[in-house]
């Protein structure tokens, strides 16, 4: 059974302009349709990569799945139970089972907490274990992320490097042995030469502790290294989803194709092909009807702009793309 199943997930933000704007006549309320009808599943032990540019909604999806934000519509089903109905003890169990690793190791740690307190905060807040067990597990986790416990337990964030802080963040998320971990660009603020270690750490821990992972990143190179499956989002919708090798070597959706082709390689002889897409990315405010990519798509035809969003269509084994013209484009 899938650990996480997301069906038709939608999140709209209402933007009501200020009083003066209303006075001047620009006062209509606008809607930011950050996430629109997103559906996907994560199997047990699977690492699903979520790629897309800024404004595509990937951070919003992270917040929705972890219930740090309430959806406007759609179902989030975790281990067979719908997430939005949870409260009380069931919500506590959910919190211990679904955790998140943040992007910024300089901002996601409370500067007043010692390393031990930072890692122990989750279990303490949820009242999971007694003091003795908390101590054992926290220290074990600290060692598990490669930080010698005796040396690090009493340190404060400002006394540690970015890499060390991120390890503490990972320890804090994993100490409760969650089943699903959402990793929101955990490497992007770290130096290049230490990223590999942290990536390896995540991979190892995922195998040892057996958790599934939704790994969000704009960097397809990193995703190609760690993810089993890849999901590409554009302006709130899922453009393509499938096994990583398939999506990267044979992308079917025009946006996914452009994204994959635009990834640079560390090779001076390699020149990226000019992407065949037009214009700049827009923001998902009051988007026009039809496919969100239609405005920039080199293959868009009238029906793409008018008809409602195309749903995900199978293009291979476990490989889906949301495009009306798939049959004609290959």
């Amino acid at each position, binding site marked *: 059974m899938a650990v996480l199943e997301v069906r038709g997930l939608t999140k709209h933000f209402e933007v009501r302009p200020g009083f003066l704007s209303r006075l001047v006549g620009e006062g209509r309320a606008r809607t930011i349709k950050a996430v629109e009808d997103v559906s996907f599943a994560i199997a047990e032990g699977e690492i699903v990569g979520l790629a897309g540019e800024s404004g595509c909604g990937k951070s919003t999806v992270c917040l929705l799945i972890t219930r740090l934000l309430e959806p406007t519509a759609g179902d989030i089903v975790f281990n067979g139970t719908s997430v939005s109905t949870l409260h009380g003890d069931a919500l506590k169990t959910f919190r211990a089972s679904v955790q998140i690793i943040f992007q910024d190791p300089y*901002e996601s740690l409370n500067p*007043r907490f010692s390393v031990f307190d930072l890692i122990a905060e989750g279990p303490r*807040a949820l009242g999971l274990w007694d003091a003795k067990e908390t101590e054992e597990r926290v220290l074990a986790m600290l060692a598990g992320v490669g930080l010698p416990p005796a040396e690090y337990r009493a340190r404060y964030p400002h006394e540690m490097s970015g890499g060390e802080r991120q390890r503490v963040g990972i320890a804090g998320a994993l100490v409760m042995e969650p089943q699903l971990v959402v990793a929101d660009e955990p490497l992007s603020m770290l130096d290049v030469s230490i990223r590999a270690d942290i990536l390896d750490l995540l991979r190892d821990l995922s195998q040892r502790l057996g958790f599934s992972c939704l790994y969000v990143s704009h960097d397809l190179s990193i995703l190609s290294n760690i993810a089993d499956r890849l999901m590409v989002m554009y302006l709130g919708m899922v453009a393509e989803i499938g096994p990583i090798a398939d999506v990267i070597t044979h992308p079917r959706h025009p946006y996914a194709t452009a994204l994959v082709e635009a990834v640079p390689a560390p090779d001076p002889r390699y020149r990226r092909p000019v992407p065949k897409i037009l214009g700049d990315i827009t923001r998902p405010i009051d988007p026009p009807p039809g496919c969100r990519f239609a405005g920039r798509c080199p293959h868009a035809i009238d029906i793409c702009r008018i008809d409602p969003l195309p749903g995900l269509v199978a293009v291979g084994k476990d490989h889906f793309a949301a495009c009306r013209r798939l049959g004609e484009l290959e």
Partner: protein
Amino acid sequence: MNALIALRRGVLNQIAIIRQSPLGTVGALIVLFFVIVAILAPFLAPHGAWTTLKDASGRIATLQPPSAEFWLGTTFLGRDLLSQMMWAARTTIFIGLVSGLISIVIGANVGLFSGYYGGRIDEVLMRFTDIVYGMPFLPFIIVLIALFGRSQSFVILAIVLIVWRTSARVVRAQTLALKQRQFVLAARARGCSDLRIIYRHIMPNILPLLLLYTAFNIAWSIIAEAGAAFLGFGDPEHLSWGGMLYELWISGQIRTAWWWFAFPSVAIISLVSALVFISRAYEEVANPRLRQR
């Protein structure tokens, strides 16, 4: 046990912070001096506060300037000023401390809850704060005293009412800023309840600000108390430095008995300034840009 260790570390931290600022250190020493005098007053004061004294010739020692016998001089009714200063220190510091602490507790909580929850709670609390801002100190204390008589508790009540407001606004602003920080989101993700986030995560980060305003609040309370007592609204059972000035005023001797005027005034000014110096040390912590490189 853990709480005691944390407390000890907290206290040592504060001492270290204050010592870093020369002004703060001076302030702390002055405050310490007055507090010790206040605590040991029963042992240090040569006479009672209301004891009428006689001089060598057997007459009442009224309006004696400072001398070997009466270090700070005497009042119109022959009372030793030195002793009065010591006993009054107790009242002044007690009222200042209690009012200051109560007002910071109220102000901080109002600010924290207002800033964290926002929405209706914020609106209601801030509306309440605005109403209180409009209330004047003196008329309010006059009404209280007219209704309930002169007592220390009402002085404290009136002072708390005007002093808590500013700290509430400032704490609210800081809370609003901290609420957006990612470590607060991380705390929510880990399962922390709202209360836990407010007290365990946000409050420790505004501690320098809270301590700064505690010092300020105590300072303002002392000034308010001195003002109220000077105008005759103090508790007649408990003499304070402001009350001493009131007695001076009604005795009509304000132009002649310079010692009766000088010592209580200097004491009030020194104590309040000392508290402001201490708050300066915290300001440097709360705003690192003020620190000397």
